[in-house]
């Protein structure tokens, strides 16, 4: 099975965000692979390993990482390769600076199609910097394949069908989808592995194809930004929360609160 995982290089979310006008400053800041994408890479690796033959030989197919970003985004691709992915594709082009989610989806779909036949494309539900959450669906549309969002468990993957559990507000849907397809995975889908020294050294030998827009037969017009950030303001500070004094009914009040929040 050929699996493509989309990975994004973002400014380290553990550090205070720096702005560059109305967009996030991306160059000259400490970057990391979007922590949300580690779940995607792990999901891809686990499917590949599950399909591996009993004697430990990996079955047919491979896990390819696809990323769009500045040259520094190579670090995110390398991280995924260190975790165990087989190869990478990085689309870098000055024209793409400041791209919106629509242009990103267009570029990623072109890169995925150029990479060859695929059975499954995995992305995170949303990025940890932009949070649009629109990319996986848009990507599926461009690729002309079905999309299953917010996958919280991959149940099985064989015979051209993928069976997954899809997170909903009060439970989950069991979904079977014919391949090829795009899925977006939540942070609960697995526990991503950490690359070992062996993995890191092996990654150095793995191929990464670096592409520009013209390699994808796309022009600057194709990826022109169609979305504009008109205003930027700081998020409101969280409010203090409600303190319940126990007059004997505190437990019931807390239970009501949790019910309202749909936690229980």
């Amino acid at each position, binding site marked *: 099975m050929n699996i493509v995982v989309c990975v994004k290089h973002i400014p380290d979310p553990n550090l205070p965000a720096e702005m560059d006008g109305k967009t996030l400053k991306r160059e000259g800041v400490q970057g990391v692979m979007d922590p949300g994408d580690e779940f995607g890479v792990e999901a891809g690796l686990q499917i590949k390993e599950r399909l591996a033959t009993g004697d430990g030989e990996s079955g047919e197919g491979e896990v390819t990482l696809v990323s769009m970003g500045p040259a520094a985004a190579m670090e995110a691709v390398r991280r995924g390769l260190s975790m165990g992915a087989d190869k990478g594709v990085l689309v870098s082009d000055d024209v793409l600076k400041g791209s919106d989610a629509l242009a990103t989806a267009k570029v990623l779909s072109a890169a995925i199609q150029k990479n060859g036949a695929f059975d499954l494309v995995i992305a995170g539900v949303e990025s940890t910097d932009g949070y649009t959450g629109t990319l996986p669906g848009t990507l599926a549309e461009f690729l002309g394949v079905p999309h299953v969002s917010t996958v919280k468990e991959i149940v099985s993957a064989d015979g051209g069908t993928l069976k997954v559990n899809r997170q909903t507000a009060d439970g989950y849907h069991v979904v079977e989808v014919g391949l090829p397809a795009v899925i977006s995975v939540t942070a609960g889908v697995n526990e991503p592995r*950490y690359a*070992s*020294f062996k*993995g890191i050294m092996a990654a*150095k030998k793995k191929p990464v194809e670096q592409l520009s827009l013209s390699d994808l037969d796309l022009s600057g017009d194709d990826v022109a930004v169609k979305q504009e950030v008109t205003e930027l303001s700081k998020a409101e500070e969280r409010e203090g929360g409600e303190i319940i004094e126990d007059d004997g009914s505190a437990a019931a009040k807390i239970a009501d609160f949790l019910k309202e929040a749909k936690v229980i």
Partner: protein
Amino acid sequence: MDFVVQDEYAELQRNITDYIERELRPLEAELDPEKDDVPIELRDKVRRRSAEFGFYAADFPEDLGGSGLPQLGMVLLREAAARTGCRLAGFTVYGPEGPTGVLLAGTDEQKKKYLTPLITAEKSMCFALTEPDAGSDAQNIKTTAVKDGDSWVLNGTKHFITNGKHADFALVFAVTDKELKGSGGITAFIVESSTPGFEVGRGQIGMLEGEGQFELIFRNCRVSEDQILGGPENLGMGFYAAMQFLAMGRLSIAAMCNGIADYCVKLGIDYAKERQAFGRPIGKNQYVQGHIVDSLVELKASKLITYECADKYDHGDAVIQESSMAKLYSTEMVNRVVDRMIQVHGGMGWMRELPLERIYRLVRIFTLVEGTSEIQKYIIAKSVGL
């Protein structure tokens, strides 16, 4: 000479830090912050998980289950783990309960049977050299092993043995020739803890609460000659085997001390910026700055001594003098640094609410184990012909 951390080591440092912050911090939060104890089950859980990701014994050979990480990489990995200040970080890389380089002197069969399960953290061991009447003067141990047919019979008492109670086996040093002593008269035996005559004596509590160290008592403890480290032909070579791998142990302590000092200096700097006295941050006072600056300079020196030693080791140097210097300097340095950082914190530094008080007690051990500071000085003096 290259002073840049190779990107593969930098990546490894990031990975272990991420792992500790994501997986171990929540577990740490469940520990009683005012007690030193870490339950042995939790220790083993962390060891196994860390081995799964290839951190735990990364510097052991790949064919035995390690990652073949050079010592420079291992030093940087240990330092990064210790720098998090997480109380469980110490178990992400092996300590005295884990594989010892000395076991690399074993036969292929011994390495497979004993070393591999240590590298994967499925088992734990203890290193049983010290005795009540012989510590620094290890040649003077009294535990004996006497040949009886095809087997050897051990008698004697060891003490201060870390992990003695939980170890699946002990590497026991015993006299097999009273005349030769250290020059061919001491043999290392691999003794499984289930062997009749292997007894765990009293626990010895030290400056950190918890299980501490243990006495091990051998009473007519009979092992086959195959349990001699390196096989029967290595009879009397126990000391030489241990010497060969001393550098790994010394470097591991140095790396840990550097990481701990890093963490403490960071606490000190943050506090010096934030704590106000006489209307300004305490860090504006030169006396306070001095505590921090002296610590930063000594820490940098310590790291460089350690890295250089590790790099030389990786290039095949015996690093006898260098590893003693690294061990001596880093262990003394971390004691000074923690002491100063407590001073920077004032009364708060003494309180159990902050980690410094526990770290102060913890680091006191490092100038004593794996050769005291005095013994390191003796080795360094000897290395220049004194």
